């Protein structure tokens, strides 16, 4: 079993989490073009890389942002999801 150490809740089994996809910035709904909206809704850059991702911790109902490499599966950073975290993406 894989474990991950998180702020506030400490060391937890990865199986307690649900993957929420890559962290991406939502375009401004007022100014977005159809093409940009399609890209945001559907299109992905799913080649192997290090990316920031949403992970939901089911027992506590908290959302975290993991920095994970999708080739090696190594998690290099964990932080609590917050408005600030979104803008840094």
């Amino acid at each position, binding site marked *: 079993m894989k474990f991950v150490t998180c702020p506030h809740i400490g060391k937890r089994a990865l199986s307690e989490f649900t993957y929420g996809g890559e962290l991406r910035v939502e375009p401004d709904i007022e100014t977005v073009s159809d093409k940009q909206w*399609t890209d945001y809704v*559907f*299109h992905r*850059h*799913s080649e192997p890389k290090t990316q920031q991702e949403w992970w939901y911790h089911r027992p506590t109902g908290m959302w975290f942002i993991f920095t994970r490499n*999708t080739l090696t599966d190594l998690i290099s950073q964990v932080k609590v999801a917050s408005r600030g975290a979104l803008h840094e993406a």
Partner: protein
Amino acid sequence: MPLRLLKYAWKKPEEEPRFFPDEKPLKKAYDVVIIGGGGHGMACAYYLAKEHGITNVAVLEQGYIGGGNTGRNTTIVRSNYLTAEGVKFYDQSVKLFEDLSDEFDLNIFYSTRGHFTLAHTDSAMRTMRWRAEVNKHYGIDSEVVDVETIKKDIPYMDVQCNGQHPVMGALYHAPGSVARHDAVAWGYARGAQMRGVEIHQKTQVTEIKTQDGKVKGVQTNRGFIEASKVISMVAGSTPRITKMVDMQTPIEVFPLQACVTEPVKPFMNTIVVSGSLHVYVSQSSRGELVMGASVDPAELHSTRSTLDFVEGLTDQMMDLFPFTSRLKIMRQWAGMSDITPDFAPIMGKTDLEGFYLDAGWGTWGFKATPVSGKTMAYTVANDRDHDLIKPFSLSRFEEFALVGEKGAASVGH
């Protein structure tokens, strides 16, 4: 008998013809380059040569023939999908599969077993009825059956599922089959090669060269190859290839795992799938139980296996087949599944002239091997999307015209 045996032993051994002739050196240019030597790549090469007379073709495979998802899948073939587009497409494939052994003069061990998709909830029953109606409308043998029928056909299954989630009924699809996956790739490869196609193993495409919005050729670990038509048929490696041409798709790659038990006496002739429990099982001709589940929880470009997978799968499997608690798991493995948001493939021409895509095969693409090869060959030969694959074009996402193939769901196969 012993005399005949002796005579045979003294006879000079006959040279077995090689299944594949020795590889030729790479040429500087081909009419068509196919990236990926899995079932799809081989089938496309075969039909290009056989049906369209295009033989100046190279299939480039970074590893060995069929070493990708083709050689890792659990080989379920069926056509009881949910959408009209899906049903028509997969039905063609089932029909092609049925004749392949004869066509190749090679036994692909195509074995028609019957396929049960179990329903454990009211809503699952509703979906089964819906699927059965769509299927029947298109002439597919598909019906909803009750628990008594299930008990009779799958005698060792606990329909009460340990009291946890009793089976309420199932969608039954008589043509559901399994086949020998390697043989499908080999048969197509040999047939293509006999007609002049070149297959180059250990040849990896590292770059795709374009000029003025047109494909010019591919860079490989063995040098540059000129070609004005390049087809990407690389399943779980698709995002790496589309990145080379700066193209975005909705594909995300998730590992899909499977395993087999030690062999036991034949006790189950059918294929059993449970969407609610996220497991499926069939018994191979060797007696092993071939089992799989849904994709791993997060995106990953790796074929590593995990204990979590076997634990989760066997936990559910023991509810369905209690006696399996005594069986040992012999082998487990994984492949990389290229998943799309509507569980339908992405096929056909793209915005880049000369670049064709056959991808988004996720957990369901083995059954499509013949028909995707055939329709992609047509598409490339005529530079026009074949009618059957029009609904699967990459542009459907921009046009918000998704296919909604829930019948494929990640565990449906």
